[in-house]
């Protein structure tokens, strides 16, 4: 049986900042991007929080620095007021909103954060719309993520 080409579209692709910087938009869909000819939409990145712009009940914009590039991330905090979420069940919205607020509290200047989210574009610049955050306290977390990204890059993404 012929092997199906590897699909990265529905997984969180572990990337270093400079690799994320190299992706290009797919003309047919603004949520999909090309990484070395493969379509991706979600990423997992890890780095030090080097800036933090907090607007209560609106958003938290922050940057992660992984030593190769600074990555802009946006965490929406307007689930209870934005018409974008109006179609969702109120109870579900409340859970999502509370979780986002916890993430916002965790993301502090100088902390190491692992972030998962969708790649998006805002005014021509790439950013990650955050869906999940873990604050990493293991001092080797960045080293291991770096090695993971390199290994995956060599074997899957760019191989």
């Amino acid at each position: 049986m012929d092997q199906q080409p590897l699909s990265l579209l529905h997984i969180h692709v572990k990337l270093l900042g400079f690799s994320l910087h190299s992706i290009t938009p797919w003309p047919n869909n603004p949520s999909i991007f090309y990484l070395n000819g493969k379509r991706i939409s979600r990423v997992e990145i890890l780095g030090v929080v080097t800036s933090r712009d907090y607007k209560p009940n609106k958003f938290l914009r922050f940057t992660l620095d992984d030593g190769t590039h600074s990555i802009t991330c946006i965490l929406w905090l307007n689930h209870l007021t934005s018409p974008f979420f109006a179609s969702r069940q109120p109870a579900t919205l409340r859970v999502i909103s509370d979780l986002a607020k916890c993430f916002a509290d965790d993301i502090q200047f100088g902390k190491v954060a692992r972030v998962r989210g969708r790649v998006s574009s805002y005014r021509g610049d790439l950013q990650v719309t955050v869906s999940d955050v873990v604050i990493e306290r293991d001092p080797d977390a960045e080293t291991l993520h770096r090695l993971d990204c390199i290994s995956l890059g060599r074997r899957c993404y760019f191989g």
Partner: protein
Amino acid sequence: MASNAIKSGALVTLPELQPSSEFFKEGASLRVTGKLQEYSVETAIAVIADQGATLKVDTQHLRELSFRIGSIFQFIGELNIQPNYEAILQARTGRNVDGIDLDLYYQSLQQLRQFQAKHMKNATT
């Protein structure tokens, strides 16, 4: 990510920060790691050491960081080069990384540079 006001701190080891090095530039954004050798509360200047090399770090802008002699710290900041070629890093973030596997860290930097070099080469061909 075409434009970003916050520059990424390039990963460098202290022995690499010699005047002849490509990283030894005024204003260069760097990330350094080393063991705390000295700390002055009056000047907020820390001296970190790694593999026989040392670097002064200005920590005046850092908050909520306890400085303990002998602990390993990592700082991100900009390099300021004095007229006598002495460098001092103006740190904007810092953290205690006690427990870090430095051998693995150095190896990961080597791997990263090889990976980046190949990736950049492929991007231009």
